[in-house]
């Protein structure tokens, strides 16, 4: 494995990404909205006025159906405090996954389909890098960026969450096992899956926009998870996150193998 070539491609792709407004805007904006503004809004909204009756009854219904561990985590709190704990620790957990997923997908679309669109891929194909080195280098940049931004998002969210929790509950909520498993295990797995799907899509399309639109379907399981939890069909727990991580990593082995097969020089050059 030629590490110099690998780092050269990595540097090239990351430099190109940081200099593209179209790529950087969602990467900056989405975490700020999802991990700072939204949690503040949801947890502080009940403080601004009394909780309406229907919210209280919905909360009651949700808690009645919830597993014992979840009930125990909010036992003894007022309804407003319960809303804050449930929102910060549980409801935002699946939403957090959108961050590594989106970052990986945007950068991979730029790196694979975008490079085709900008007609810079051909020059790269004429370099001595092997197909495997090229694939690995181009796959590493979206994945590493997604994992790093995911961890940074987790750190920022922990600070915001703890400030809110300290103010409302007089205690800290982060870090905890659930979120550690999300940030360190399931998040990187989801980033890799999103990358693999975007590479598969990018092999068939010619523009960044097309790759983004088609690759966006990967967000659907996360949306299902959010809805499933909100409707009480399933509850996010540390065990579930670890299990999901295992499944997604297994899926990655398949998707990334397929993606690598499509990334062969001959296949790419045939479509230029």
């Amino acid at each position, binding site marked *: 494995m*030629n590490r*110099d*070539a690998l*780092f*050269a*491609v990595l*540097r*090239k792709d990351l*430099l*190109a990404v940081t*200099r*593209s407004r179209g790529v950087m805007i969602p990467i900056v904006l989405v975490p700020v909205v999802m991990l700072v503004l939204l949690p503040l809004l949801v947890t502080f909204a009940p403080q601004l006025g009394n909780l309406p009756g229907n919210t209280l009854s919905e909360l009651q219904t949700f808690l009645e159906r919830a597993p014992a561990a979840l009930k125990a985590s909010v036992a003894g709190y007022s309804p407003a405090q319960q809303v804050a704990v449930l929102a910060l620790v549980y409801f935002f957990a699946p939403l957090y996954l959108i961050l590594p997923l989106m970052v990986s997908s945007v950068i991979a679309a730029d790196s694979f389909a975008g490079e085709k669109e*900008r*007609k*810079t*891929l*051909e*020059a*790269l*194909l*004429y*370099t*001595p*890098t*092997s197909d495997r080195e090229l694939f690995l280098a181009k796959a590493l940049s979206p994945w590493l960026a997604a994992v790093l931004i995911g961890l940074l998002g987790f750190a920022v969210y922990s600070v915001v969450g703890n400030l809110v929790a300290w103010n409302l509950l007089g205690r800290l909520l982060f870090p905890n096992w659930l979120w550690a498993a999300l940030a360190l295990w399931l998040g990187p797995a989801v980033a890799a899956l999103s990358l693999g799907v975007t590479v598969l899509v990018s092999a068939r399309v010619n523009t960044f926009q097309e790759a983004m639109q088609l690759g966006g379907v990967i967000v659907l399981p996360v949306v299902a998870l959010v809805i499933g939890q909100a409707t009480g069909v399933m509850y996010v727990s540390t065990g579930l996150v670890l299990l999901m991580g295992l499944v997604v990593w297994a899926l990655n082995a398949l998707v990334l193998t397929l993606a690598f097969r499509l990334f062969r*020089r*001959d296949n790419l*050059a*045939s479509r230029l």
Partner: protein
Amino acid sequence: MNPVIQTHQLSRRFGEILALDGLELEVAAGEVFGFLGHNGAGKTTTVRLLNGVLEPTSGQAVVLGLSPARDGSALRRRTGVLTETPAVDERLSARENLEIYARLYGLGPAQARARAAQLLEQFGLAGRADERVGGYSKGMKQRLALARVLLHEPELIFLDEPTSGLDPVAAREVHELIRGLQAAGRTVFLTTHNLAEAQLLCHRVAVLERGRLRAIGTPEELAGRLGGVRLVLEVTPATLPAALSLLPKAERRENGSLSVPGVRREEVPALVSRLAAGGVGLYRVSLEEPSLEDVYFALHAEEAP
């Protein structure tokens, strides 16, 4: 002949389309070899096959003693390819473009920096080396792409339409560069549909038509195959219809003169006498050797359905 490129029945099919059909080719070391053909003739496919970027459907190629299909990485370390579009990363600076590619071609960090600086200077880009390439003119991007081809000092250089879109001054600079490369002992495989360029620069040319090799030889050899010379006449405007009726093969040029292709030298005195006897007023009579362009169009006309 010490061949650096040898192909035998090299073919490539894309679905139903046979892009390259049984190419037989030999290119000698140190040669500037022109590869001519219309768009879609199979030129770029050939360059990709010769660099191991595409795999042949059938047939073989040996380039610099290596098999492109099997030893692609090792081969590409010794070749440099200028693609049809400059393919430089517009979000990066010229220096970044060169340094990153230098690393991809195996140069160490200090070596990559030094080589990039040297080429930026050589190609007149040093003054704007740290600006993003997106703001460069087309000519500057092409110069940068050419500089990138030379980063690792390749033995065999493929140039795909190197002067496409360049102004005459920039095109002449590229021609000088090609001559310089040839003088330095490099082999240049020049893909072009600029026939004047091929005639000016190439030792030998090959003409590709719909994936098939139609002709190969020096420009003079190919022109010789046409037979005869071109007779160019300037006649008085009043006698132009008479001249055209006496010379049915004559073509009118934009400057008003008449051009008669495929005339044997020994026919010329009789032709001129006939024109004079027919009352055609002649200002000027001259002979032109057939150009590569004549050959190219003749071959194309033969191939056309």
